[in-house]
């Protein structure tokens, strides 16, 4: 029983070592630059105008509309938020000014 377990354990260790070795071998066999990343001088450096009709697989128009929608939403949402904050602080200033003025007038009269 113990001998069988030992055999299975040795088999497992061997299998593990082989798996690690195979993984490392495959990784080593890959070219250093797998195409996913490239140095700055090998990447796109120009945008050129299209000539003639084109056909797209990914809907660029939808992505463009969403992008511009997000820009407008964020900019105008922010302007509205700051505008609301400005109105609130102006109202607070007016309220506090009245409060302090009436207190000062009361103090001066009294």
């Amino acid at each position, binding site marked *: 029983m113990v001998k069988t377990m030992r055999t299975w354990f040795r088999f497992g260790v061997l299998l593990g070592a082989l798996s690690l070795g195979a993984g490392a071998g495959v990784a080593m066999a890959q070219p250093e630059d797998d195409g996913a990343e490239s140095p700055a001088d090998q990447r796109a*450096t120009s945008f050129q105008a299209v000539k003639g009709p084109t056909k797209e697989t990914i809907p660029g128009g939808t992505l463009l509309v969403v992008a511009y929608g997000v820009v407008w939403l964020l900019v105008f949402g922010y302007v509205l938020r700051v505008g609301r*904050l400005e109105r609130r602080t102006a109202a607070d200033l007016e309220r506090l000014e009245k409060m302090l003025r009436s207190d000062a007038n009361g103090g001066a009269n009294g």
Partner: protein
Amino acid sequence: MAFPQHVVPYARMATEPSKQVGFPVLAAISAAMLSITLYLIFGLAPVELQMGVVQKIFYFHVPSAYAMYVGFTASAVGSTMYLWKRRDAWDAIAVAGAEVGTVFCFIVLITGPLWAYKAWGVWWVWDPRLTTTMLVGMLFAAYLALRGFGAAGEVEKRFASGLAIVGLFILPIIHYSVQRWRGQHPTVITGKGGGLDPDMRVTLLVSFATFTFVVATLLWLRFRVERNAQRVLELELDARERGLLEDSW
């Protein structure tokens, strides 16, 4: 008890904004420039050969990154000056810059993946420029969260100032990351770029000018509001000292 003289100009400034001519003019120029830019993007600039119509995101994406730089730089400069001089006006500049910069950072981080999905087939990659942009966005989001806990005290202001200054050091890393490290981000206008169609170049330059006006308008607006908020806090303190307001803090 003497009436505090500084109350009158504060209130006048807040309740009579019509006397400030500069801001409405700047806002009007920004709106007009935005209209012109939109016309150029969709009317003049041609469709790009490889990516198609989605490349037009470029005309808002890149100037938004520039506006982000302006906002975060203003925040870092304001923070540095606040730590040095301890004047609230500098702190207001820092807050305005951080908030406006974060808005444009969000725009960059949302429009970029929309373009990337078409160009690269994935929404996001851990490219150096993308990663460092997200990092600086998170840093200034932390700044705003710290300043957002009601009336920020002196300790919060100083700590937030430190964050903004750290953020300033990340900006050149973002800018030069496409040249120094491997990645996927295009290098059309940085590094060895410059390969833009003439109509595309005109549109991009006008867009940069437009975003200069837009970011200046937003910074001015937010600075003005922050200054008023600071004055509200000062007057509230005054009123509390006179027993006119109940202590609620």
